[in-house]
């Protein structure tokens, strides 16, 4: 089996994995980082979004072996334990979630969006979240949360 070594949430990890292991399976089942969710498993819903070398990717559509040597950040790695990242705080305050299933992917997508565009418009937020589906909120409060999170990240 191929051996991979990478950095996940700042910590170096190394394992032997089957080549067919998806990055999300490696994160959830091997590393027990179950904050990253599998929603559709067909590359559409975005619940599995994590950052690989600073870029948002769907971890159900990437092999673990492709992350060999990479720097991966999951929802668990956004803020120190017990603390919330400004974007997580903004989702909390703006009612940007109901059931919460899509939230880890939404937050990771939003953080990547704001890192590339610190002061996005409403339309840019909606375009930036095209790869993330939410079946509860109707998106209105998610957009509000991202705009508030962006503001918090700027200050």
């Amino acid at each position, binding site marked *: 089996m*191929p051996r991979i070594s990478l950095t996940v949430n700042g910590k170096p990890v190394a394992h032997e994995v*089957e*080549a*067919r292991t*998806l990055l999300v399976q490696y994160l959830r089942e091997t590393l027990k980082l179950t904050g990253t969710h599998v929603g559709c*498993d*067909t*590359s*559409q819903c*975005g619940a599995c*979004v994590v950052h690989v070398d600073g*870029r*948002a*990717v*769907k971890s159900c*559509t*990437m*092999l673990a*072996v*492709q992350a*060999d040597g990479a720097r991966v950040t999951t929802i668990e790695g956004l803020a120190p334990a017990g603390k919330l990242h400004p974007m997580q705080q903004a989702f909390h305050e703006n009612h940007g979630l109901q059931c919460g299933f899509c939230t880890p992917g939404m937050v990771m*997508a939003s953080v*990547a*969006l704001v890192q590339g565009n610190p002061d996005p418009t409403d339309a840019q937020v909606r375009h*930036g979240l*095209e*790869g*993330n589906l939410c079946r509860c909120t109707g998106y209105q409060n998610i957009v509000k949360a991202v705009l508030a999170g962006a503001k918090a990240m700027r200050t």
Partner: protein
Amino acid sequence: MHDFNYLRPKSLADAVAAFKNAGDGRYLAGGQTMIPVMKQRLASPSDVIDLSQVPELKGIAVNGGIVAIGAMTSHAEVAASKDVQAAIPALADLASGIGDPHVRNRGTIGGSIANNDPAADYPAAVVGLNATVVTDRRRIAAADFFTGMFGTALEEGELVTRVEFPTPEAAAYEKFLHPASRFALVGVFVARTKSGVRAAVTGAGPCVFRETVLEQALTRTFAANAVKNIDIDASNLNSDIHGSAEYRAHLVGVLAARAVAKAR
């Protein structure tokens, strides 16, 4: 997904050799179609050859009116490239609208055209701009590259290395998104070039095609009004639950007019 032998060659020669030595090899570019296809077991290759470390497939170069894009360049890189934005803004704009941000961070131009999905965006630019597809063994004109639904002129093991786009005088791409999948129900790429006007249509038929009715009308007058209510033959277009052939034919004219209006 069935397991496979994973290879990550460090050069073009090694990648091509790995394919030759494989029982049932498949190249892996960005994986945004390939991995879902393997998950569904529609493909179960014995060997997967990851192209991410092949330097010959990387980079964007603008030289003498040609924009050359390495096959492993992601959609996000093309969209963000100042060189592409300056030389062919329509191409950067098209790349910025493929799939979603996460897909654009992984998906590549080489993977997109080698797959030739009937609703893919890049084939419209390749045909609309009369690009040349360069492979490990030859140069293929856009007119010869796309041969049918998911079909290309690529031979067994032949690897796309880059795509060369001639700079047009003006061009633009417009698509009508399927509201759920965000794939192009119809997409139209128009270009005014030194050698004439070209109009390529994706999503509407089994494979990207040039619409001569549009090209003739736009050759007379390169203006939105020239194509707005144009009569497009629906007989070879797709008809499915998302839209009838007649609806798609109508969209071809509407989108062509929008594209002409924003062409620069």
